[in-house]
């Protein structure tokens, strides 16, 4: 079993979001970056569990410049066997998907597992795009995944419940909560990560979209405090003022 896990680095949720250059660039000064949680906790850990049971390797792939390598090493410390860095900043979702496809297309991966979304651009798009480029099945928002006999059995969330589906491998799965539990790297993992293979490959530049400018949402008006004894007032405000009931 050969599994590929695309990983992204994102600003930690508690980071202050600001922009520079006339609001055209995300200001990365003073921002703490982390591995994207759904990639690290759900996609990577489930991939490791599968190869621990059935044998095989887990490769992580990341598009970004050399300063991303600490995040790739973290994924190797969690347990990935080897890593690939696509040597260019990501320009849009299609650009990343295309670069991952260009690397993966002739490597014989049985499975590609992504996190459901990144917490910066919240796109939910890379997995589906890779699947279409590869012309293989794609199951999104998966909370469980079992592989056997060339088939993936996947639990996926649908409106008002859950659906269990089966698709042939190779396939692409996007993982969310329920799939696995976060693993904290141990000292042995951290030591061995330093010497695991990390290859750097060139990137193609093609993309479909670009961000012209960013802005901030309108500030919230102050919270109106309601007397806990007077819930009639709250209901009335929700009806008359907020018009939501």
């Amino acid at each position, binding site marked *: 079993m050969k599994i590929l896990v695309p990983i992204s680095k994102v600003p930690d949720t508690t980071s202050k979001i600001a922009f520079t250059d006339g609001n055209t660039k995300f200001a990365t000064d003073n921002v703490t970056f982390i591995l994207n949680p759904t990639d690290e906790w759900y996609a990577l850990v489930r991939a490791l569990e599968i190869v621990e049971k059935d044998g095989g390797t887990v490769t992580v792939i990341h598009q970004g410049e050399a300063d991303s390598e600490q995040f790739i090493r973290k994924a190797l410390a969690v347990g990935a066997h080897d890593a690939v860095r696509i040597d260019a900043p990501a320009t849009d979702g299609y650009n990343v998907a295309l670069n991952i496809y260009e690397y993966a297309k002739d490597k014989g991966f049985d499975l590609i597992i992504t996190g459901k979304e990144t917490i910066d651009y919240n*796109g939910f798009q890379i997995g589906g795009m890779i*699947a279409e480029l590869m012309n293989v099945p*794609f199951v999104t928002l998966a909370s469980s995944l079992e592989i056997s006999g060339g088939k993936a059995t996947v639990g996926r969330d649908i409106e008002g419940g859950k*659906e*269990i*589906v*089966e698709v042939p491998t190779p396939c692409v799965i996007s993982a969310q909560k329920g799939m696995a539990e976060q693993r904290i790297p141990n000292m042995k993992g951290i030591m061995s990560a330093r010497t695991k293979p990390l290859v750097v490959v060139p990137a193609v530049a093609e993309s479909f979209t670009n961000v012209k400018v960013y*802005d901030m949402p309108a500030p919230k008006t102050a919270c109106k405090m309601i007397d806990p004894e007077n*819930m009639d007032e709250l209901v009335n405000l929700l009806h008359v003022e907020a018009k939501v*009931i």
Partner: protein
Amino acid sequence: MSVIAYIESNDNKIKKSSLEAAYYASETAKIMETEAIAVALGTHDASELANLGQLGITKVLHDSNPKFDTFDSGAITKAIASIASNSDVVVISYNQNGKAIAPRVSVRMKAGLIPGASALPSLEGGFNVSKNVFSGKAIAHYQVNTAKKIIALTPNTLQLIKGEGTATIESVSSGVSDADFTTVIKGIEKTSGTVSLTEAELVVSAGRGLKGPENWGMIEELAKDMGAATACSRAVSDVHWRPHHEHVGQTGFTVRPNLYIAVGISGAIQHLAGVNGSKKIVVINTDSEAPFFKAADYGVVGDAFVVVPKLIEAYKKFKANSY
């Protein structure tokens, strides 16, 4: 030239998120001075499809092949791309299914994707659509540089305005063969007839402040009375007081209802990331310093075990008088 809306039905009723896609498509068609057409695959109710005319859709292209009733992102992508091959813009709701389809259609049609549009496009100096980024902490104004465009619309973004009209229905074949369907459904677990969380207009959510799973009766009662979906914080689903599919926030579901009522939830930034798109937020918490009040429109400082029963009573009274 035309703008396409992709339509899904559930139990023969068009999903609310698809009605939004239809309305968005017809508003976009107005901006582009062209026609809005719907694409429907599989089993649908004909009068439901015809009623899309009320949202500005002139024509529905329907491939009634029942194979489409099993959700298969590859086959649906092929069908949409084939039927929409002469169109400029395809609008797909970014609901659970849309998240599987829209990125694929983007690649197949070589059309740039807006993965979660939060407003109608503007044609000033290009084709521009805005989208919330950084979990709602900022807005990015995207420009799409391809000839064709895919807009994946965040559910509950637009207020639907219905007019008069009936759409004509045209049977089409999307040229998809049996071999294109690779997904087999092994089972479906419905969550007990409740309102689906990501589509809900009203959400009642509770956190660790409720002390234990046995205390959720009043939350469910309030939700049932209001026709709301129930949700919870991660702290609660992690200890299995509530099911995982109720977990909202950065690592759970993102919701943007008209009203989000948070009971006994502190309002950690990771929780807010999943709910701050809500139009109005009510916070009920014993601690007046709880960070959630900063994100709230209406706040009640008080004990949930006292306040929620009072709220249920007040709501029942309001309901009884609102005829």
